[in-house]
């Protein structure tokens, strides 16, 4: 492109009113985008807060892992030892088909979960998990049952538990455990998914599969757990895999 031959020498008003208006608009645009960026940043910080919740959970589980097989491990609810079985429990375990008394069904149900069904109307708070769990030991019949996850979780999220102070930054409420992160559900950002990782039989196409940790799941043996949080878009963000 050729350079123009004409050189403007006469005095021209270089800045017009519309130019000033445009400059003001540009300043406004900068502030507007910065404001929107700040909103995005704050939302990002909420995700960061959720990640910190997940990291705190993972850290506690990892820290407790080697000690919980020792005697006098505190909290006892999360210890790996066996509990003497309640009569009702042993009965239910022996015969689920026989006439169960009201109130015992829940205790015997194998898939009673400590997690919610991921529906906003009924989010099961960890703190309110399964009231049907064994509350006292009766050594009369000499049988034992493994401690379960529901009992441990109830302690951990309880008033004196180490996770009591953890809040979901997205709704400023206590942390909630759900089955899975679902991008179609916009009410679960910041929720936590706790899964157990189980090895598949030899020869399988995948080395392992995951299960949502149910409150009735026994915690007497070593288990591999995966902590995941749901981000702003309800997509899962894996935090850590821990041996517990």
């Amino acid at each position: 492109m050729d350079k123009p031959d004409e050189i403007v020498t006469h005095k021209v008003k270089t800045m017009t009113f519309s130019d000033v208006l445009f400059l003001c608009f540009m300043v406004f645009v900068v502030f507007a985008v910065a404001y929107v960026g700040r909103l995005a940043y704050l939302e990002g910080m909420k995700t960061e807060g959720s990640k910190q919740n997940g990291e705190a959970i993972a850290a506690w589980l990892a820290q407790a892992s080697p000690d919980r097989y020792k005697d006098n491990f505190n909290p006892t609810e999360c210890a790996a030892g066996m509990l003497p079985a309640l009569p009702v429990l042993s009965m239910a375990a022996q015969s689920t088909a026989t006439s169960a008394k009201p109130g015992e069904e829940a205790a015997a149900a194998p898939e009673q979960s400590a997690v919610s069904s991921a529906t906003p109307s009924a989010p099961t708070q960890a703190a309110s998990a399964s009231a049907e769990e064994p509350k006292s030991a009766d050594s009369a019949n000499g049988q034992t049952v493994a401690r379960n996850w529901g009992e441990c979780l109830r302690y951990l999220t309880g008033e004196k538990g180490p996770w009591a102070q953890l809040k979901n930054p997205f709704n400023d409420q206590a942390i909630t455990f759900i089955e899975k992160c679902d991008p179609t559900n916009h009410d679960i950002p910041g929720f936590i998914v706790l899964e157990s990782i189980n090895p598949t039989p030899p020869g399988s196409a995948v080395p392992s599969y995951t299960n949502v940790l149910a409150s009735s799941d026994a915690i007497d043996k070593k288990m591999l757990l995966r902590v995941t949080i749901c981000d702003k878009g309800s997509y899962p963000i894996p935090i850590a895999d821990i041996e517990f």
Partner: protein
Amino acid sequence: MDNIDHMRALLHGKKSVIEEVIPSGQGFRKLLYDWLLNPNYQTNYHKEVDNWIGLLIIANLFAMLFERVPQVFEPNKELFHIFDVFSVVIFTIEYFLRFYLAPEDEEFAKKKMPRLGYIFSPFALIDFFAVAPFYLQSFLPIDLRVLRFLRLLRMLKLFRVLLPAITEFRALNAGRTFRQKLHALVFNSPYGGAMHNLFDNFIVVWVVISVIAVVFESVQSIHYILNTEFIILDTVAVTIFTLEYFMRLYCCVEEPGFQHFLVGRLKQAKTTGSIIDFLAVLPFFLEVFLHHLFDLRFLRVFRLLRLLKLTRYTGATATLAKVIVREWPVMAAAGFVMMLLVVLTASLGYLFEHEAQPEKFENIPQAVYWAVITLASVGYGDITPVTPVGRFLTIILALIGIGIFAIPAALLSSAFSDQLVTEREELKDSLIKIIGEGDITDEKAEVIRAEAERLHLTEHEVDKLLDRAIQERDTIEHGAKLPLSQIAQDPAHAVEHFKVLVSEIRQLTILSNHTQFETFAKDNDRLTQSELALWQQLGSTVTPTSASTLGTATAPAQAAQPHSDQPKPEGGTHSAS
């Protein structure tokens, strides 16, 4: 230096001819300055030095940003340190090089003590402060944060590139309105100069950074660590792109065809480039305000559209668009045939396979997937016909598919090649025009270089193109000659033509070394006896009188040998100069 060689040198803009461009026979210091730092030479290395230093400064900026991320910095401390040392070494070499060469610099050469003048010049002070903290920490305990802040001073080195561009831009736009200046900065115009190039580069760099960020955001481990950094980066990128968008919209009225204050801007907003610019920033706002309506992952990937902004700076997509527009009718016809075939294939597949595999060939729309995969020769194998008729049909379809599906690809390929040939011809025409003008300016050379780069021409190809242009120019200049068959039809014309030919042979006899000519002709049997006799006869008949009939071209030759009626038998070289 020969004019064509000079053109060649300018067109290449390369250092292979540097010694031809830079005057030889000067001292080492002067040569080194001209070679590396002198901005008055277009074909030396000064631009490369500036560009590489600029890149190193930007890399330093990123290193400083990543140093603030413990997850990145802690495991790679050693690498960060090595990079820092490397940068300081380069910057120190640059500082001392400029210090050594200061007496050759026009700016300091006039001073009594040029090197002292250099030391206290603003750029030298910036260069000094860019490296000083590194050496200072060896002697004094400096807080790490202070050190990092001091290292930010390296950014100021960019002013070495920026300030001359600003000065040039101000000179080019003296007396122009703010909007015109903005137009010169944003749009391609003769007023833009280096500042416009810097603006383009700035946008390109941010597009690349932004796209890399989007790509790395999809890597879970990286996104986990740098989540907030990505948000900040995106905000900065969107701010820049939004400002650019509005700048283009505001000053587009300076563009020919966009002058009306409202219609022109609407027209600009409807251009492909503007739509791409708009889509590049849209996901950022949608993500913040309407994230509950959209899938966030989709919006994040949607930001990759920013890559399309680069189409403004490359001609390849424009060529492809031209090709598609040109071949559209044929491609549409091929598309129609393909569609017909797909529907027919899917229907037949459904007809023959539905009963055997109702779950796979449930209906015709489901069978379309199988049809396309088969016709396109992809053959995933997840759906396969099991009936004999179905398999026979698949054989036929696969054979037809190879031909039909290849048509659009072949069309595009051929048309793209044609388009490139056309554009190369246009480039050649430009070269012929430039050669016809006798000389080439730096600006024209730059345009040709850019065009050659766009057409992916190598130096060798540019040379060949230049040679062809020279040949064609010569042919055009001497193209007034009629074909021999036409000349032969007219005796008068034929006689005149014969005289011209004889005259040319006589010129040759005067200008050639007879001994060498005859020796070569005899030794290699290049001429017959009669041809040699004719040569000797014509050569021996060159007299001042006859030579005068050769026209003006022989006059200088004659003047060079005013007393020679005949060429010397021993044949000294008869220079026509």
